[in-house]
């Protein structure tokens, strides 16, 4: 007899895709219409390519698009290279475990906060320059173009420092299943060095596992707005920033051009993915030649040192940047070339403490609800996969990544119109639904591998002892997998806490979260306020990770075998 609700469980994967892709598809439609000249609000309905023609005539287009492509591809390649070098050179060592422990705090720092911190480190009037000023005899900061450089180098740096932790996390999730220790031992027995052995026997099997996260990083780097506004060039800016400028221009006619540019942005993302795929094929071909040549590798030490240095530098940049923001948040007047403020003051916190703590309850409710929905759907999908053998095809996995790959700017404005049309906007449930779109992929990706790696023989034993499939799920599998479930929930909460555009557009300004409040307060650009809001955001995103670490330790304090499970 099928258990009650089995039909529902069987439909879980379909329901999940609907919840996630429905809004993306609807939002894209809402963007495509104005791009092709149909804009009901202004009574404009002249289908055609006029908007694309106007876009093509914009003098900055080529540079802007090239900049997006260049910084996106550059940041992704660099972040991936650093990640691979760190893993190849140091996986399994003590230095690596230290790095591993620092990961979740690094992941909790919002992108914009990391960018602000980095900006204050490397600016000509920043901390590094201030440290050098007495030696170099600078009374004024040198007039050199470090931030907002035309090639987007500082933008690339800002993206790399935040993407390395993410790629490392994804790599760490995938590595255990590959049993790299054994393969590496074999390779080393054959005379390969540590790094060349790893690149030869582990990387080729690892890369397919982290390919989709890499694509997500690429799409994100290409369409990022906040980091690009802080670190990127602005004459002209990368395309995504320009889309936002047009979208927020008082001249309403420019909204259609913004829509056309958003379509181009989507095209750019696809082109970049295509280029990356070609690159993959090229690297694989070269790699195969290299492996076949049987080279045992040279310069192992240099590669290992480079990996560690770059990894430590990118971690240090985030941590030092955060320190700088913390000092700014309590700074009195702080001019160049002082290393520290002339006086300290708690005024920024007193002024903004209230504004930041008021939306805390809403932030928590939305994050918990969105994560609960995402977690329930994910677990239902995974359980359906287990019970009915509904294995997701590669294509289904792609769909899962779609909300991360389609630039937000390309579908959120359309989604807003749709939500208003349906009378669904401006309240908490609508915001929660919008958050689920972005939370779900992360929760699924964090949980899927540990869930599948569970030894099903535990289930067989439980069945033999008389437990039904639900009993196995609730009383054996879920408790045993408590830690990865909580980690996935923490990732989900952190993603929800960080959402700005979805909250703003779907919430209509009536649903305020810590992030919308922080962005509005920080829009004034005062470093003190930016420091305080960035720290508050980091704390809010870090809290769930801390809970995820603490709860299993408490719950299993008398079950030692589960504590490391």
């Amino acid at each position, binding site marked *: 007899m099928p258990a009650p609700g089995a039909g529902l469980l069987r439909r879980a994967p379909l329901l999940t895709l609907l919840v996630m892709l429905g809004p993306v598809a609807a939002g894209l439609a809402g963007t495509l219409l104005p791009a092709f000249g149909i804009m009901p609000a*202004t009574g404009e309905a002249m289908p055609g390519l006029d908007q694309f023609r106007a876009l093509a005539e914009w003098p900055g287009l080529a540079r802007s698009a090239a900049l997006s492509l260049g910084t996106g591809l550059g940041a992704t390649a660099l972040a991936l290279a650093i990640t691979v070098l760190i893993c190849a050179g140091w996986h399994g060592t003590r230095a690596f475990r230290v790095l591993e422990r620092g990961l979740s705090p690094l992941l909790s720092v919002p992108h914009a906060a990391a960018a602000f911190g980095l900006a204050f480190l490397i600016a000509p009037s920043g901390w590094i320059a201030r440290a050098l000023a007495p030696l170099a005899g600078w009374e004024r900061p040198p007039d050199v173009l470090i931030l907002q450089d035309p090639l987007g180098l500082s933008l690339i740096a800002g993206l790399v420092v935040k993407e390395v932790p993410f790629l490392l996390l994804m790599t760490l999730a995938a590595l255990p299943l590959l049993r790299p220790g054994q393969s590496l031992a074999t390779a080393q027995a054959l005379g390969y060095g540590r790094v060349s052995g790893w690149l030869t026997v582990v990387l080729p099997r690892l890369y397919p596992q982290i390919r989709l996260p890499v694509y997500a990083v690429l799409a994100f780097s290409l369409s990022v707005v906040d980091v690009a506004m802080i670190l990127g060039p602005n004459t002209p800016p990368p395309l995504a920033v320009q889309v936002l400028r047009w979208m927020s221009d008082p001249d309403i006619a420019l909204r259609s051009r913004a829509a056309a540019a958003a379509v181009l942005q989507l095209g750019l993302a696809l082109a970049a993915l295509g280029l990356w795929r070609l690159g993959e094929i090229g690297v694989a071909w070269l790699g195969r030649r290299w492996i076949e040549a049987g080279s045992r590798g040279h310069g192992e030490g240099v590669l290992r040192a480079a990996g560690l240095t770059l990894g430590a530098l990118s971690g240090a940049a985030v941590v030092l940047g955060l320190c700088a923001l913390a000092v700014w948040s309590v700074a009195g*007047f702080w001019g160049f070339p002082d290393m520290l403020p002339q006086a300290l003051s708690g005024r920024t916190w007193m002024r903004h403490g209230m504004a930041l703590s008021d939306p805390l309850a809403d932030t928590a409710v939305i994050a918990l609800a969105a994560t609960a929905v995402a977690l329930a759907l994910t677990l239902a999908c995974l359980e359906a996969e287990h019970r009915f053998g509904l294995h997701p095809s590669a294509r289904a996995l792609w769909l899962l990544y779609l909300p991360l790959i389609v630039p937000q700017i390309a579908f959120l404005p359309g989604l807003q119109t749709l939500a208003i049309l349906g009378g669904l906007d401006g309240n908490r449930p609508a915001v929660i639904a919008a958050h689920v779109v972005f939370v779900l992929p992360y929760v699924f990706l964090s949980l899927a591998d540990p869930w599948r790696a569970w030894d099903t023989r535990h289930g067989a034993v439980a069945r033999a002892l008389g437990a039904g499939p639900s009993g196995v799920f609730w009383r054996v599998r879920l408790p045993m997998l408590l830690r990865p479930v909580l980690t996935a929930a923490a990732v989900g909460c952190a993603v929800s806490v960080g959402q700005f555009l979805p909250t703003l557009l779907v919430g209509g300004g009536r649903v305020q979260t810590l992030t919308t409040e922080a962005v509005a307060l920080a829009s004034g650009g005062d470093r003190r306020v930016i420091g305080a809001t960035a720290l508050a955001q980091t704390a809010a995103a870090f809290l769930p990770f801390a809970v995820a670490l603490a709860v299993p330790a408490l719950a299993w304090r008398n079950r030692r075998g589960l504590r490391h499970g």
Partner: protein
Amino acid sequence: MRRLIAAATAALAATALPALADPDPADWDAVLDEARGQTVYWNAWGGSDVVNGFIDWVGAEAEERFGVTVEHVKLSDTAEAVTRVLSEKTAGKDEGGAIDLVWINGENFAAMKESDLLFGPYAEALPNWQYLDPQENAALTADFTVPTEGMESPWGMAQLVFYHDSARLPEPPRSMPALLDWLEENPGRFTFPQPPDFLGATFLKQALIELTPDMDALSRPVSEADYDRVTAPLWDYMDRLAPNLWRQGRAYPQNATRLIQLMADNEIDVGFEFNPNAAANAIANNQLPGTVRSHVHEGGTLGNASFVAIPFNANAMAGAMVVANLLLSPEAQARMSDPDVWGLGTVLALDKLPEEARAEFEAVERGPATLSPEELGPTLPEPHPSWMERLEEDWTARYGVAP
């Protein structure tokens, strides 16, 4: 097709009007009755401590005196509100909109007015309108020369004011040509926020006014003027200015606050803001050293008014009007113009106020960083908004996308 839609919209509007029963500001008691218990979502830029503090105070007053709750929806850009109302109109949401009141002026107002996104006219029927003198102060009824026609209500006067650090630069340049001469001697020590940032565009307009041979052309739409002749001196000037700017003009700060930060970081020597009290506020906030002083250009600087407007589909129109009226009260205006609170200029005509209210304004004390009204000099009127759009576009084509 376009005609058909327009006709359909008109027909719809005609049938919809009687049913809506919007509150009538002429019947103020009815407005007050309706407003009691309403929540007004006031969308206003949230990037300034002093402004947020003043809006909090207004909310507390509205609650206590009129039973109106004010929720300050902090925007990072006023265009977010314009987009919102536009999206609601797109979706046919003609009542119960998310925004009740919005802080607005210039291009944003022109755009909303042109697209019929506003409720009104209401401003001139507000009880406290009696304290204003639009004859004397044309900026109250002409927002960047666009007639307000009662679709928005003024609440503060702003003026372009430059600032410098007297410890580093005792005698600042006081005209556009003097600024250029000084900058050629001190390359890299001045910049402006990148247009289309509001303050950057204001700098372009100020330069145009100081340099153009034909001031009168600026008060009419740009399409009616000999644009090339009117703006030629501006572009000559900019061509000489740009290579001497901070970072050789290859990068620009994003907004006014970044400019203050550059001043504090000793990267530039002259900055400017659109509030006569900005330098004093920044000093009080620890953002600038106490040696910073304000100055203006000879011949005057641009000034304009800030307004509040009510979207056509606002949910709490009566409450929004009560707040707009409260903003025009002598108490609120005196508080707003107090340099310790905010320091924005009042929109009221002091000679129209009762005796004791006037005394409150006259008792205001200014710090050393703020100029007196006499030192501030004349306020120049804003050009027609079409000039701003065209200048932004041209500037971007010439300097904003250059390698």
